[in-house]
């Protein structure tokens, strides 16, 4: 290829990237209006939850996907962020701090919890680590469930209600916002806020992945002893992975509390941790677009099953034979098995992982033969 044509290729490449970015931007901007008018507000809520789950999945991806540390208690950090928001902005303690204080504080506190979980588990790997993190997740949930006596901190199993909606500037996102004669409904406003934070987290993750720190994480995943011998302080770098991952969870948790207006321990059970882990694994561990895809699919598919399976059964059998809720989990399990059988590296794996699973040594031989 001459240098001229490669230059042209580069230019068209760049133009393509810009065009794709603009189209993506417009699509993301109009998405809530399309879904809101086409499918109704319940789907708009689901869309907002998808954004929260994307943040969670990206956080867990740092721990599991990059650093290779299996964490089954990740939802605990979501809980920490959510409860911090609930305690600092609700009638429960009579505190009403602004969101720009609570969300960073939630990220920081969740990060500290991440380090607390990480510290005793530094020498553990694989199944052993999974068991300890699973225990940690349950401990946090049980604490939230029981910290209502002797001093009532978390209000126990009843949870905390009446949480302040998120305020930004002079606006509350709970009510439609009127600006320049244009009215933005509440769900739409939350959508844009969540989208902005999700994009921020995507940006941070991409930057981290292609950095000295990101490489150290992957090196630990690949071979911890070799990583140590290369001068990587594996203790600190692992703690950093736990802290960073947890802080993303803390952000998502705070947003969840403000959006939902109510938190209770049952929102943070083991099944939620497993769900976020599934998003990471199913989407394509370690690959950012894959993890995002996993987050979207695993939020939306169960809802489709939930909403769709009843009417479909009525249409076919004339009555509901199977409880939609049970059927939802059944189909979900089936989908997991199918994906793991046919796409073991995830739906959208990184190019590296794809090669890894194909065991593509033929590729190398071909290259040498050329």
């Amino acid at each position, binding site marked *: 290829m001459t240098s001229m044509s490669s230059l042209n290729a580069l230019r068209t490449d760049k133009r393509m990237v810009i065009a794709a970015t603009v189209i993506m931007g417009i699509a993301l901007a109009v998405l809530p209006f399309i879904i809101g008018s086409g499918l109704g507000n319940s789907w708009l809520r689901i869309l907002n939850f998808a954004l929260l789950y994307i943040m969670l999945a990206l956080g867990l991806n740092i721990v599991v996907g990059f650093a290779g540390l299996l964490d089954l208690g990740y939802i605990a950090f979501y809980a920490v962020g959510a409860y911090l928001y609930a305690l600092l902005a609700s009638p429960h303690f009579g505190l009403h701090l602004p969101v720009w204080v609570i969300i960073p504080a939630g990220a920081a506190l969740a990060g500290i919890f991440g380090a607390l979980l990480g510290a005793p588990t530094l020498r553990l790997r694989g199944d052993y680590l999974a068991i300890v993190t699973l225990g940690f997740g349950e401990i946090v949930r049980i604490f939230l469930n029981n910290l209502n006596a002797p001093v009532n901190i978390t209000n126990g199993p009843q949870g905390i209600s009446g949480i302040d909606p998120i305020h930004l500037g002079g606006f509350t996102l709970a009510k439609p916002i009127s600006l320049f004669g244009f009215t933005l409904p509440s769900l739409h406003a939350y959508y844009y806020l969540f989208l902005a934070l999700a994009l921020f987290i995507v940006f941070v993750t991409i930057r981290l992945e292609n950095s000295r720190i990101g*490489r150290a994480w*992957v090196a630990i995943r690949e071979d911890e002893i070799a990583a140590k011998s290369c*001068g990587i302080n594996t203790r600190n770098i692992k703690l950093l992975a736990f802290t960073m991952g947890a802080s993303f969870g803390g952000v998502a948790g705070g947003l969840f509390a403000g959006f939902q207006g109510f938190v209770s321990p049952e929102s943070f059970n083991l099944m939620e941790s497993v769900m976020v882990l599934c998003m990471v694994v199913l989407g394509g561990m370690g690959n950012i677009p894959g993890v995002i895809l996993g987050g979207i699919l695993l939020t939306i598919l169960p809802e489709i099953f939930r909403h769709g399976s009843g009417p479909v059964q009525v249409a076919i059998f004339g009555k509901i034979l199977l409880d939609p809720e049970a059927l939802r989990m059944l189909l979900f399990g089936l989908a997991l098995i199918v994906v793991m059988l046919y796409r073991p590296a995830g739906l959208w794996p990184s190019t590296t992982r794809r090669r890894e699973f194909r065991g593509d040594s033929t590729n190398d031989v071909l290259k040498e033969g050329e």
Partner: protein
Amino acid sequence: MSSTLLEARAIDKHFGGVTALRNVSLTIRQGEIYGLIGPNGAGKTSFFNVLTGLYHPDGGELIFAGEKLQASAPHKVAKLGIARTFQNIRLFGNMTAMENVMVGRHVRTHAGVFGAVLHDRRTTREEAAIRRRAEELLNYVNIADRADDLARHLSYGDQRRLEIARALATDPKLLALDEPAAGMNGTETASLRELIEGIRKDGITVLLIEHDVKLVMGLCDRVAVLDYGEKICEDVPSLVQKDPKVIEAYLGGSIA
């Protein structure tokens, strides 16, 4: 050529009742290629692991460039300037060759989370320097054309070379090679030999564990022989070859 780089003083290491190293003392001088040989199970790799902080010695101490090495802190050992390769190659298999070498620069660079996210001038400059140095090193060990291939897809000989490049990326004063010629054919061994001589010419001291006696005898300035965890000989190659204790260790002595 004369100043001492590494001094091992009476190193002991046991695994349960098995003695891996007993009272091993040796001195490596600045700028030399020092060979460590011995029959299988003599304790060569155990010595490496003690030296690089992977094992905690049960006795004795290591002085490197005037500083006492802290046991069980491999990353600190790397920072002080000892880099190693492994007998059974330990690369980051699912990273590219380039990335493997870039990881080697970790210990000499500083960018943290904030630098990574903000991409400030210092970080971008450091990142560019890391990449440049990694390219240089891949060139140096002659595998620049494989830079973007996954380490696990490289040929055996190239993997050995990549491991050396990664070790060199840490700017070591002492490069410890654990059987680098194992499984190599004659041509590969010859070019490995050239590579090691080049490394020494660049001022890096080399500690070499090797089974290939011809390679060791031709390459090393001095050789120590371990047998059953004890040093039985330390001298220039020509004299080591004639030492009766060494011959006995390798060929078996008379029945007692």
